[in-house]
């Protein structure tokens, strides 16, 4: 073998490039990592991570020795909508067609610990997930699905205690002993405060709840993953891959410490911790992230001196990135999802969810869900990539990238350590702010057409495709839930209920295990809302005090004719009206998708608007009051969880009732085109869907004003 000399390559590359410089081929990733056009063996001589072997510490190449060569990853599709009966049907359909494990999506009322009859959830019942009020709903959800065999993952964080309690009670009803239950409870509250927004209690009692669950499951449910430490939601909220990696591991550290403080032994619970990544379009970066994560986690756990090497192994679920999927030219999404799924698999995931192509429109239909499922089946059964374990190991580029990610992520982790850990950092708003910066930067790049999205800002389709979507009559679901609740409250023994609710309150005040008492409460038909209410009496309900960033969008968006046209528009407006256009950006109902709203707020302020930011979870009346007191010109409703059909009419009514219909209303977010005309009829001036170019929207809004 002849020894290579990089200079030879540089020479011939420069010849090919002619006028161009070699430096122009370097690419700086959003994480600030400089990627070279060529990697060679020199690049892997000094790595910051160990490659090792699969199934052995430090597990960089995978948590199992045989990986997919023996058994492919688990196809686990996240789903849930409407009533428990409807979701049950959907699950069974999936299981017949290749799905191997369930993953339950709860509606937002349940997430936030409200029963379906609560006044704050009129727009949220059954809309973005399945409505669960009590063990009875849970029984219906798993009717005909034996929990002794089926592993069930549940995305639940805020109301984690009552919901897990109902699940366990339902398993017991089926005759499945508690120790045989398998699956995962997300139970990752820290990222709720950061990005997902379905918290209920303040951080301190919330962390106690996490520890209660880890403690209980480690003793009684050996096959159950007590937590799914999630980076997924961070990337979806705008985090770049390094941020996702670093903040997730930092969260993990915090949970380790919380459990150890409980007096648990590291080996009692560490093997049951699991992780959850988002896999976006930055193909190699995603694979590198997954490998870096496994290496870094083993390093982190090592410091706690585990005896069992399984404590060091990071096991993970992955989901392809929803935010990479677009409303425009929606069939492109099938291709995107395929690429992302491939990265997840090459990164060595243990289970995977693939999104449907109608992701940016509504919850999936049977048809779109089938294609999403088949994407995984094709990868697993037609391509042959399962046959070789960790096939990319040793790649010059990939290993070098993995190494860079380790370095960069460690920097961010130190920043968190320096302020005293993740709970402190979250209180100070550090990670949220960093993530919002990344999100604003990305939007500026997309709006300036520096970041290409096919079908959105380049190669736009000339014709609109009509896509059938799943539409839920949430009013009907809510009424059904309410009548079932009323039935339940009549038929159960309310004295016993009161007794257990009081006990829950007592345990919340003291230091017993909340899950343990709530299992008893759930068995005796206490509702999710009642159990939450009892804890809320002691802990209080948390409100977020987060600040909106400013300047990041403005700095990163390229100035062009659009931007200067906005400036003149605004100047004219000021001359005419004596002040800047003032817009209130609102989030109503329990919809916690605030990425779009925050982005709109910060970007419009950077473009010269005065922006009022409403708090999360406003009611229409509250939003109207704020708009009127601040005398805004326009209310911008950002709505993504299908609440618009209920909430926008209520908002417009509230404005009318206060003789303030002079205030214009516009909507943005995930709103199926099918609903546009209804909104216009109500008096909405304009609807801005996913993929909206912000400067263009600003001009349109100036025209409305």
């Amino acid at each position, binding site marked *: 073998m002849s020894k290579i000399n990089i200079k030879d390559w540089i020479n011939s590359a420069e010849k090919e490039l002619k006028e161009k410089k070699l430096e122009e081929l370097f690419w700086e990733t959003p994480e600030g990592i400089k990627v070279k056009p060529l990697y060679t063996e020199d690049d892997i001589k000094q790595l910051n991570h160990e490659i090792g072997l699969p199934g052995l510490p430090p597990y960089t190449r995978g948590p199992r020795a045989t990986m997919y060569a023996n058994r492919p990853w688990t196809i686990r599709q996240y789903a849930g909508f409407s009533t428990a009966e409807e979701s049950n049907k959907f699950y069974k359909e999936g299981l017949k067609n290749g799905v191997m494990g369930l993953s339950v999506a709860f509606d937002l009322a349940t997430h936030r610990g409200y029963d379906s009859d609560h006044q704050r959830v009129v727009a949220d019942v059954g809309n973005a997930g399945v409505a669960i009020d009590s063990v009875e709903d849970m029984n219906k959800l798993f009717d005909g699905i034996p929990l002794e065999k089926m592993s069930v993952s549940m995305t639940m964080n805020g109301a984690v205690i009552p919901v897990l309690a109902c699940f366990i009670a339902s398993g017991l009803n089926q005759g499945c002993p508690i120790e045989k239950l398998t699956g995962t409870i997300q139970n990752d509250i820290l990222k709720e405060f950061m990005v997902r927004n379905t918290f209920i209690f303040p951080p301190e009692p919330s962390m106690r709840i996490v520890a209660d669950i880890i403690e209980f499951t480690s003793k009684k449910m050996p096959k159950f993953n007590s937590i799914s430490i999630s980076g997924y939601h961070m990337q979806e909220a705008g985090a770049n891959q390094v941020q996702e990696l670093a903040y997730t591991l930092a969260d993990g550290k915090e949970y380790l410490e919380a459990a150890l403080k409980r007096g648990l032994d590291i080996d009692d619970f560490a093997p049951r911790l699991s992780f959850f990544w988002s896999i976006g379009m930055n193909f190699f970066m995603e694979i590198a992230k997954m490998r870096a994560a496994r290496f870094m986690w083993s390093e982190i756990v090592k410091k706690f001196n585990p005896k069992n090497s399984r404590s060091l192994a990071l096991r993970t679920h992955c989901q392809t990135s929803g935010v990479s999927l677009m409303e425009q030219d929606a069939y492109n999404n099938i291709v995107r999802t395929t690429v992302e799924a491939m990265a997840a698999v090459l990164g060595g995931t243990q289970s995977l969810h693939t999104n449907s192509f109608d992701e940016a429109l509504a919850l999936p239909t049977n048809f779109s869900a089938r294609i999403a499922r088949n994407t995984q089946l094709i990868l697993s059964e037609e391509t042959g990539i399962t046959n070789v374990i960790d096939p990319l190991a040793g790649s010059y580029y990939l290993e070098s990238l993995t190494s860079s990610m380790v370095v960069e992520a460690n920097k961010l982790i130190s920043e968190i350590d320096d302020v005293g850990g993740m709970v402190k950092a979250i209180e100070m708003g550090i990670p949220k702010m960093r993530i919002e910066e990344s999100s604003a930067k990305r939007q500026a790049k997309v709006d300036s057409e520096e970041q290409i999205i096919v079908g959105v800002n380049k190669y736009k389709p000339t014709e609109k495709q009509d896509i059938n979507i799943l539409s839920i009559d949430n009013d009907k679901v809510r009424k059904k839930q309410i009548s079932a609740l009323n039935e339940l409250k009549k038929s159960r023994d309310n004295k016993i209920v009161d007794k257990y609710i009081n006990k829950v309150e007592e345990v919340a005040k003291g230091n017993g295990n909340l899950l343990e008492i709530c299992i008893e409460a759930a068995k005796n038909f206490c509702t999710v809302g009642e159990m939450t209410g009892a804890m809320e009496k002691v802990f209080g309900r948390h409100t977020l005090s987060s600040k909106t960033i400013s300047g990041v969008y403005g700095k990163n968006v390229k100035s062009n004719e659009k931007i200067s046209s906005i400036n003149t528009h605004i100047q004219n407006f000021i001359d005419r*009206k004596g*002040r800047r256009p003032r817009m209130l950006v609102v989030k109503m109902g329990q919809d916690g998708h605030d990425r779009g709203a925050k982005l709109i707020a910060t970007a419009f302020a*950077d473009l010269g608007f005065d922006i009022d930011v409403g708090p999360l979870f406003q009611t229409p009346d509250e939003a109207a009051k*704020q708009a009127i*007191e*601040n005398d805004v010109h326009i209310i911008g409703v950002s709505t993504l969880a299908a609440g618009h059909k209920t909430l926008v009419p209520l908002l417009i009514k509230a404005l009318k009732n*206060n003789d303030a219909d002079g205030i214009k209303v516009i909507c943005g977010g995930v709103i199926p085109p099918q609903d546009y005309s209804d909104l216009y009829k109500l008096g909405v001036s304009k609807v801005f869907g996913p993929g909206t170019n912000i400067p263009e929207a600003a001009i349109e809004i100036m025209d409305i004003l």
Partner: protein
Amino acid sequence: MKLQDYLRFRRIKNKTFAKLLNISPVSLSRYISGERFPEKEILIKIHNLTEGLVSPNDFCLQDEKNYDFNENQEIELKKFHQHILSGSRKHLGKAITLIESSREKDQIISEKLLELFKGNDKSIRIGITGVPGVGKSTFIESFGMKLIRKGFKVAVLAVDPSSRFSGGSILGDKTRMEKLSVNKNAFIRPSPSSGHLGGVAKRTSESILCLEEAGFNIIFVETMGVGQAETEVYDMVDIFLVLLLPAGGDELQGIKKGIIEMADLIIVNKADGELKKSAEITQREYKNAIHIIDKSRISQDIGVVICSSLNQCGFDNVWKYILKFIDIRKKNNDFINERNSQKINRMWGLVDLKVKGFVKNISSRKFVEELLKDVKKNNLSVYRAVKMISNYIIKK
């Protein structure tokens, strides 16, 4: 001075004045409205009859457009006022917009509106300052709710900084008060700092008047303890609270020295959990240091209390102190005297703004531009130019 203003000022009827001039009232009203320009003899007569206050320039230079109100508009304005009195949030919101507006016409309307107000000395105007994150909004939220439960109506004003680059701003972040904002006895209004000449902050005292007219009797003005706005806010409130963190020393607090000296009451916030101890220490330190501070508004030592806005502890002491403070000052008339002198200050502030407006207006005039050229070329000294420009302004 405009002739119309002179007549109003001296309470002379148009008819009477017309007689003195020996002209018909109709002609006089034409001169006043600017429809016609008076003859030279008439101009001289007017000059003499008005003690020299109304000069020929007051007729020709119509820089300010004359938005004279017709009867209909007067009626509209009265209705507007009635709405405010009857508690319409919409009209209150609009009134503040008019006050903050940079449009001349809005300014005039708002002035007319404010002239209808009767004023109210039953209210308490409370200024609150402290570094970002000290808990001002949380304090106002919890303390305000407490006052509402006592039967008060609470309003909150705050000025949010506008971006120097885009001029736009994010509002409401600093005043996130979830319970207060949904309460029907509360009104919260954040304002952008850009906008009106001289800054909207300068207009906050007028907004206070609107809120009082609408029946709000506790007015909080939230401001950050780092900038310039503190003195302005100090000069528009009855009592000025400085919130501190449980930590030692002014430097550690990141707060400007002068600001502590303006305090009428020092509140150490976040006296809860691990911080409780250090809050008590901070309280003691400030109590000891307080004697050194020149007390401006009250003759006794100013109070230093601790509280937790999160757990809603310590508010009784705060409220007791405020009541006592106001009571003492009302009894010795300091309260009303200070409000009056604040009113005068406000007047001078507005004069200042007007003058600045003039200066801004003439800076684009041809003759000024020529002056500037001469100054740059050293053909004219800075001082002579100043004299010429100020003479020009005075003549106007």
